[in-house]
């Protein structure tokens, strides 16, 4: 059973999307914006609301890279691994980042400061290697710039 506060928050979110056609993705984005992840207890609430099964909701959450079932670190750093960024040194940059943080892709540093994720293209293909820090784009990232970004994020 969900607590009263969760039910209240979810009622607000579901009401906001009531008029949309095919509202599940917008609902999940709103949930993630609210909680930072998709808490397990909201799955049943969403399923009941949309008259679909919990399995269907879970299937959608697990299909998309964006939706997480646990909180991320305080900052999310995404590094582009796609071809255009690779042509200007993204692989070395990725290796450096993972080594510095001591985690694998998708991992969070032990101090909880940074979650590092691979992303396949940020559309910054003419000014790569590209990265994104909490939704803010950064281009022409070299080793020094990366170190600065990691330090600012509290690595």
């Amino acid at each position, binding site marked *: 059973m969900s607590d009263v506060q969760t039910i209240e928050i979810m009622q607000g979110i579901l009401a906001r999307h009531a008029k949309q056609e095919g509202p599940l993705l917008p609902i999940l984005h709103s949930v993630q914006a609210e909680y930072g992840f998709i808490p397990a207890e909201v799955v049943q609430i969403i399923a009941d609301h949309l008259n679909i099964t919990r399995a269907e909701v879970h299937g*959608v959450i697990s*299909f*998309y890279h964006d939706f997480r079932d646990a909180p991320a670190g305080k900052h999310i750093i995404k590094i582009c691994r796609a071809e255009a960024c*690779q*042509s200007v040194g993204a692989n070395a940059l990725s290796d450096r980042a993972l080594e510095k943080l001591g985690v694998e892709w998708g991992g969070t540093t032990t101090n909880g400061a940074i979650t590092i994720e691979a*992303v*396949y293209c*940020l559309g910054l293909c*003419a000014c790569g290697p590209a990265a*994104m820090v909490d939704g803010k784009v950064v281009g022409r990232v070299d080793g020094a710039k990366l170190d600065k970004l990691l330090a600012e994020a509290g690595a």
Partner: protein
Amino acid sequence: MKIYVPLDSAAKAVGADDVASAILSEAKSRGLDIEVIRNGTRGMIWLEPLVEIETENGRIGYGAVDVADVPALLDGKLVSLGLVEELDWMKGQTRLTFQRCGIIDPLSLTDYEAHGGLTGLRNAIAMTPAGIVEDVTSSGLRGRGGAGFPTGIKWNTVLGAQADQKYIVCNADEGDSGTFADRMIMEGDPFTLIEGMIIAGLAVEATQGYVYLRSEYPDAIDIMEKAVVLARGAGMLGADVLGSGRSFDMEIRVGAGAYVCGEETSLLNSLEGKRGVVRAKPPLPALEGFLGKPTVVNNVISLATVPVVMEKGAAHYADFGLGRSKGTMPIQIAGNVKFGGLYETAFGLPLGDLIDKVAGGTLSGAPVKAVQVGGPLGAYMPRSKFDTPFAYEEFDGQGGLIGHAGVVVFDDSTDMLGMARFAMEFCAVESCGKCTPCRIGAVRGVETIDRIGKGDTDAIELLEDLCETMKDGSLCALGGFTPFPVMSALQNFPDDFATKKEAAE
């Protein structure tokens, strides 16, 4: 004095926001009356942040401007690039789709109209739906997302379908590496896309539109959402489009990081709130698309090109190009290049001219080894194929594809076996799982390439066979086209697959 500082993501990524605020604070401390306008990008990404100052003779460019350059800029002491319109990169282009991008304030409808916006829509309002479809058909416009299917023919199918509700869905899930034209137009001239979608709505009698925009583009999402609100407020969208008595409204929908949702049937499932799994065709989305209703699914650039077709006429557009590739293509030059950015030109420019002349060769200065055209599913072209004209059929004849016209350049330090491996790895990560050859084949592909990398040349035949199976046994382009980069790397750069064996021996 008007100063333009781009708000485009690529400009922001290299410091445009800081430059803009430095100009404002410097102007304030000097007591200067300066208006900073955040425009889209002109597409010369190597010059970003490209600051422009309006003068009597035109806009003078400065780039790349650093925050430290701002005092000199306002003193008039910073060395300029001259008139932006007169730069070789700008003069060499035929800008139709991108005619306003980088010039106007993206969120000013007044600017938009002053530069030719809404003329196409007004012309379309005066026409019958069939008349609009006929114009788009005769313009020769083909789907710019990659498949190159004639836009007018798709529209005609939707127009002919009987239904109580039809939809226009814009595919803005631009996930291909090396492509950013969709992002650039959405950030730099969003009303063009909105106008194109309204015209599509009028043409096929659809009243609701959706833009499925990838979550990796937060800036584009923000601008498009604002533009939709402004368009609604100005009566461009809503129950009575520009007083025509016709209704059309639209909504921006955000994707969730699945590359495969750029495939139209996956996109429709995702838009309906399902897993982005590919659907078998038929039924065509034109007949049974979003929520089972007749739906036009077009790429951003296809839709954003419709206004200029309706503004200047189908014949004007069709006059550009080569053979069955009519009009212009916004080519995105990316990767290891000296001059990267967006270059809109008529179809037919040889690939080599694009790389050696327009892009100025590699950024690293080393020789070009390979060029991947058309995103992660496009072939790696060696220098021996550089005389191929940039057009649909011509690239097809060379075992490649132009796709969404992203061109990624690699220098001679690139390991093509590694790139082939990455193509398989990417396919394995992004496969929706519906077709076995894609879901399992991509995983086996990575393993097989690793075997080749360790010197097992017998595995080459296995890889070729696997690629054939993936090509023939996948419903969509992800599984079906991943063999393009893999096989082209193998065939065009056999040394990268053989030397490992020699080294091992």
